[in-house]
C-alpha cells in the first residue's frame, strides 16, 4: 500500500484530518456549551455575543440543590458573614436560600429526582440483565422449538413505541395503584431492557466455546454448576457491557416517566425540562442539572467504547 501512495493522496489525507478535527469540534460544541453554562454566573449565561471566557462559579450547583427566593434588599453584612461559603454565592447572585422555621435548608426537587433515577435505573438493570443472561444461555445452548420466532417476539416488544404501551399500562397501573411508584417504573424499564439484554447476551454466550462446559460436565459438574462456575465468569465482560447499556437506556428514558410519574417517583428526565416553567428561566441552574445528569452517561460511554457497535446494533454487528 505504501508503495503506491502518491503525493496527492498524502495531501488529501491532511485535508481529511483537518476536516475530522473540525467536525469533532462542531459535534462537541453543543455539549461544551451546556457544560460551560453550568459554571457561569447568571448574568453571563444569555449574553450577546456569547460569553466564552469567564471566571467559573459553583453557584449554579448550589442553586440547583436548594430552594431559593429573590432578595428584596441586599443581605446585611452580619447575615452575609455568618453564612457558609455556599450560601454567600447565592447572596452574590441576588437570591437567598429558603430555610424552614428551624433554620434547615430547604432542598429543591432535583436531589430526589436524581435519586429516583438512580433507584429505578439500577434496579431495572439488575433485573433485566439477570433474567436476560439466563434466557440468553437457554437460547444459546439448548434446542428451543420455534427459536427464531421466539427471538423475534422478544425483539419486537422492544420496538413498540413507548406511548403505545403507556396507554394501557397507565390504565392498569391506575387500577392497582402503581402510578407514580418506583416499582411501576422498574417493571416497565425491566420489560423494555429485557429484550435488549437477551439479544445482546445471546451474542456473548454464543462466543463462549461449548467445550468449556462439556469438559466441566465430564468432570462431574451439574449443568447449573457449570453455568455458574464456568460460563458466568467467561461472560463477565459481556454482562458488564450489557448492564451499562441497560442502565443508560433506563437513565435516559423520558416518555414512560412523563406519563407514569408525577412527583414521588419522578425521575430526572421529565423533571429537568419542567424547571423551565414560566417567566425567565435561569439557564445556569438548568445547565447544572443537565451537566450532572449527563456526566455518568459520558463516563460510561468511554468505558463502553469497544462495545458500542455491538450494543447499538443489538448484537447484530460485531467487530
Amino acid at each position: 500500500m505504501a508503495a503506491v501512495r502518491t503525493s496527492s493522496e498524502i495531501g488529501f489525507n491532511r485535508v481529511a484530518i483537518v476536516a475530522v478535527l473540525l467536525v469533532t469540534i462542531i459535534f462537541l460544541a453543543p455539549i461544551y456549551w451546556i457544560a460551560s453554562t453550568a459554571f457561569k454566573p447568571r448574568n453571563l449565561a444569555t449574553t450577546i455575543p456569547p460569553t466564552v471566557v469567564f471566571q467559573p462559579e459553583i453557584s449554579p450547583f448550589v442553586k440547583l440543590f436548594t430552594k431559593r427566593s429573590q432578595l428584596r434588599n441586599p443581605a446585611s453584612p452580619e447575615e452575609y458573614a455568618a453564612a457558609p461559603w455556599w450560601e454567600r454565592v447565592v447572596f452574590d447572585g441576588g437570591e437567598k436560600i429558603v430555610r424552614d422555621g428551624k433554620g434547615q435548608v430547604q432542598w429543591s426537587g432535583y436531589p430526589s429526582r436524581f435519586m429516583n433515577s438512580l433507584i429505578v435505573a439500577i434496579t431495572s438493570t439488575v433485573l433485566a440483565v439477570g433474567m436476560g443472561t439466563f434466557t440468553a444461555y437457554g437460547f444459546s445452548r439448548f434446542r428451543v422449538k420455534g427459536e427464531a420466532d421466539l427471538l423475534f417476539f422478544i425483539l419486537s416488544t422492544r420496538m413498540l413505541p413507548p406511548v403505545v404501551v403507556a396507554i394501557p399500562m397507565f390504565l392498569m397501573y391506575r387500577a392497582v395503584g402503581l402510578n407514580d411508584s418506583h416499582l411501576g417504573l422498574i417493571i416497565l424499564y425491566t420489560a423494555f431492557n429485557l429484550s435488549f439484554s437477551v439479544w445482546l447476551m445471546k451474542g456473548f454466550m454464543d462466543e463462549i466455546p461449548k467445550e468449556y462446559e462439556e469438559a466441566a460436565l465430564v468432570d462431574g459438574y451439574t449443568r447449573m454448576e457449570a453455568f455458574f462456575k464456568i460460563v458466568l465468569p467467561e461472560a463477565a465482560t459481556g454482562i458488564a457491557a450489557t448492564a451499562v447499556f441497560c442502565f443508560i437506556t433506563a437513565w435516559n428514558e423520558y416518555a414512560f416517566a412523563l406519563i407514569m410519574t408525577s412527583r414521588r417517583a419522578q425521575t430526572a428526565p421529565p423533571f429537568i425540562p419542567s424547571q423551565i416553567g414560566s417567566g425567565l428561566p435561569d439557564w445556569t441552574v438548568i445547565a447544572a442539572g443537565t451537566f450532572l445528569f449527563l456526566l455518568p452517561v459520558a463516563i460510561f460511554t468511554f468505558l463502553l467504547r469497544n462495545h458500542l457497535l455491538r450494543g447499538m446494533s443489538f448484537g447484530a454487528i460485531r467487530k
Partner: protein
Amino acid sequence: MATTMITTLDRSSRAAARGLSDISIRNLFIIPTILFLIVFNIFPLIYSLGYSFTDFRASTSAAANFVGLQNYRDLLGDPYVWSNFAITAKYVIISVAGQLLVGFGVAMLLNRDIPLKGLLTTLLLLPMMLSMAVVGLFWKLLYDPSFGIINYALGLGTFEWLSDPKMALYAVALTDIWMWSPFVMLLSLAGLSAVPKHLYEAAAIDRAGPFYTFFRITLPLVAPILMIAVIFRTMEAFKTFDLAYILTSQPTAELISIRLYKMAFQEWQTGRSCALAYIVLIMVLAITNIYVKYLNKVKER
C-alpha cells in the same frame, strides 16, 4: 463425536442422580422471561385492543360503550391525523437522509490513519448516548433567537428556529441529525474497515480513479451495513416523541407519537387513542419485520 456421546450419556445419568435435567434448566431459564414479556407487553396490548372498540374516557367514571370500528373509521377519515402521518414521514426522510450523509461522510474521513483516532471516534459518538429529552432541552438554549449560539455562529440575527411554523420540523430534524449521525458513522466505520485492503491495492495498480473505487468497491461492500443503519434509524425516527415534544409545540412539527400522547393524556380520548396506537403499532411491526428479515439475510453471508 465420541466425546459428545460420552458427555451426553454421562450428563443424563448424572442429571438423574443430582441436579436438573437440561430440559428443565432450559425451561427454567427461558419461560420466566417469555412470561414477563407477555404479562407486561402483550397483555396490555390486548387490554388496549379491547378499549379501541369503545368510547372510553379515562378522565370520567362513565362506563365504556362498545362502538365497533367507529374509532378506526373516524381516525382513518380524519385529515388531521393524516397530516400527522405526513409530518412524521417528512421528518423521517429528512433526518434519516441527513444522518446517512453526515454519518457516512464522517466515517469516510475517519477511515484512515489519524492520530488519536480512537479518542476522536469515542468523542464523536457521545451525542447518541445522551437522553433525547435532555438533548431537546439544551438545544432550546442553542436555538434561542436572541442569545442562542447557533444564530450567533451563523450570523442569522434573531432567526426563529422553533417558533416559526415552517422551520420547527427542520430544527427538530437537525437536532436529530446531530444526535444520530454518530450511529450511522459507527456502523459505517465497521463496514469500511471490513473492506479487504487488497481490493484497493488491485484498484490502485489498475489505475482506477477515486470515483470508480468508491462506487465499484467501497459502496457495494458497505451497502448492507448502511441498510441496517437506515432501517434501524427509520424505525426510531418514526417513533420519535421526546425530542420533538420538548423542542417545540408547533402544530407543523406534531409527529404521530405526539398526537397520540395528546389524544390519550391531554384530551383523554382513551378509546380512540387506543385505536390510533394500534394503527401506529402495525406500522412499527411492519418496519421491524423488514429489519429482522434483513438482519438475518446479512448474517447468513
